[in-house]
């Protein structure tokens, strides 16, 4: 019985302690209810809800999903009930659960992110936030927040200023240098980063001579993208002082081990749930057995094992007030520099 527990917000007094490092990824696990009856969701370390927006969204027209070699494309279009209805509907249920629920938020402006964070700050049943910065910033001509270090820092700082909840910022693989973005959101006050979100792809139906997805492009996920995700996890884990959550194409323990060895303190599973939910919730048990077989007493012993210089020093726990303060500074800094 190795120690599988992990705190994804070591710098945050509110903490985000998971009993094991296997998390269900946003958009692949609904609101936590859907897989009940299929699997025991409490075998997971945590789960992340479908992305929430300030207002309700009906999402994209159909078809929304299609398969590709070793992967799938999705263009759901963030269909969701909107933050207010969401808060009434789900956290009250999660409150009674042992498994931490993390809320994934998607905004089109810095203000939208901050507003959602404020509304979620003290909602019982919400253990933390995952900030999806792979969204277009409508105040920057639809340029994706996650592609620009300043915009990424600004969003993080604004969220940080609006809540003391643990904040995981989910990075976009579209950035030129994902490590630079990771450092920026760490500065902005993120407690952890998760990566990667989907790559943008397209499949064309050669019979109909048009894209398969009604939306044209979609997000590529699944084993096909794992090498890109492992590489980015490795690049980010080498430089940041906060926990890294790795994801992208994890379908088995061995896949997950690649991310841990690349420096991830925890992993998320998305597409894998669609294929084999039973195997996904078993990964934590398999990991436990594997660590025992390797003579490791805790997961920490293999995290970053493949990094040439191991993990950088961890950031120290920050005083509650400083949290908002530091982020405040960045918020200012940004407003002056933009």
């Amino acid at each position, binding site marked *: 019985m190795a120690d599988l527990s992990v705190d994804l917000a070591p710098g945050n007094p509110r903490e985000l302690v998971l009993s094991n490092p296997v998390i269900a990824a946003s958009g692949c696990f609904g609101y936590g209810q859907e897989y009940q009856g299929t699997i025991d969701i409490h075998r997971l370390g945590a789960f992340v809800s479908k992305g929430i927006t300030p207002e309700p969204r009906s999402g994209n027209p159909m078809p929304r999903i299609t398969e590709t070699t070793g992967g*799938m494309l999705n263009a759901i279009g963030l269909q969701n009930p909107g933050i207010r209805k969401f808060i009434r509907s789900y956290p009250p249920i999660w409150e009674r659960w042992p498994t931490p629920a993390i809320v994934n938020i998607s905004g089109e402006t810095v203000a939208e992110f901050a507003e959602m964070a404020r509304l979620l700050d003290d909602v019982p049943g919400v253990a933390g936030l995952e900030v999806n910065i792979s969204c277009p910033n409508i105040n920057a001509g639809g340029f994706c927040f996650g592609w620009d270090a300043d915009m990424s820092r600004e969003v993080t700082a604004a969220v940080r200023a609006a809540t003391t909840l643990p904040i995981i910022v989910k990075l976009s693989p579209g950035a030129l240098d994902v490590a630079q973005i990771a450092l920026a959101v760490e500065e902005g006050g993120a407690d952890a980063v998760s990566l990667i979100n989907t790559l943008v792809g397209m499949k064309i139906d050669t019979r109909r001579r048009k894209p398969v997805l009604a939306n044209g492009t979609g997000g590529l996920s699944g084993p096909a993208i794992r090498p890109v995700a492992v590489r980015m996890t490795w690049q980010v884990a080498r430089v940041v002082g906060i926990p890294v959550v790795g994801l992208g194409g994890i379908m088995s323990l061995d896949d997950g081990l690649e991310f841990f060895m690349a420096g991830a303190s925890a992993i998320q599973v998305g597409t894998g749930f*669609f294929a084999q939910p039973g195997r996904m919730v078993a990964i934590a048990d398999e990991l436990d057995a594997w660590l025992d077989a390797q003579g490791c007493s805790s997961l920490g012993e293999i995290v970053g094992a493949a990094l040439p210089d191991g993990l950088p020093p961890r950031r120290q726990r920050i005083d509650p007030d400083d949290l908002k303060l530091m982020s405040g500074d960045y918020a200012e800094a940004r407003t002056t520099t933009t």
Partner: protein
Amino acid sequence: MTATAPDTANLPAGTGREFIAEVTASEPEMGDCTLLTLALPAGVAPRLRPGEFVNVLCRDSASFDPLLRRPYSAFAVNPDPVAGTMTLLIRPFGRGSQWLATRQPGERIDIMGPLGNHFEVAERSERLLMVAGGVGVAPLAHLTQEALRIGKSVTFLMGAATADTLLAAQRLPSEVEYVVATDDGSRGHRGFVTDLVPDYLQWADQVFACGPDPMLRSLSNVIKRDRVGRRPTVHVSVERTMACGVGACLGCVLETRHGMQTSCVTGPVFPVEEIRW
């Protein structure tokens, strides 16, 4: 090593909605289709209601080809609580269905289900009309089996491209009135199965349909045109590409009067008038 773990890995058969089923029989039907019978874990078969579907992993677990599961409706069910079985009717389209259609007795398959809603036969409905297009015949064959058990009378309309891709008459109980249509007129009415529907609208208390979207759309037009008032009620089972099968991905939605609804949880069965085609 995990990559080659058996499908059974960590699946206490019978508990939960993901389980391993063993193929017990395979026979050809409807031209290039296959009837595949699977032994279900104790307790599953009795729960399986007509119109519900299962989401099948159409590969061994070490391969990702195809990556996602494939949804299939039950064609027939032996509800024995212990020795229960389920028979699927599989038409070979691409990778997944071809893999599934070629499984042999003794092979074990990873299945999720029963999933989705089902066909509801109203207490006071006596006469049921089934309208099937192609492999859409599957859930309606199962429904017919159930309806007869509870003493309803059934008229079964089926359409197919040619005579040899029609469901063989002996696959349906003899009490059923079986009327067919073929595109080429090689058997029964030449044309669409939906052309036959008007003659039965007076007779039927409920209509149940399953088939390709074009067929369901034409059915909905026939209903709009010829139905008097709100009877018979008409329920159709739609087919949308799916990923999770449990309402988690929102990939399979359908636009209805009540907004976007998942065809895997709220559906696949919808009242025909609620669908925005």
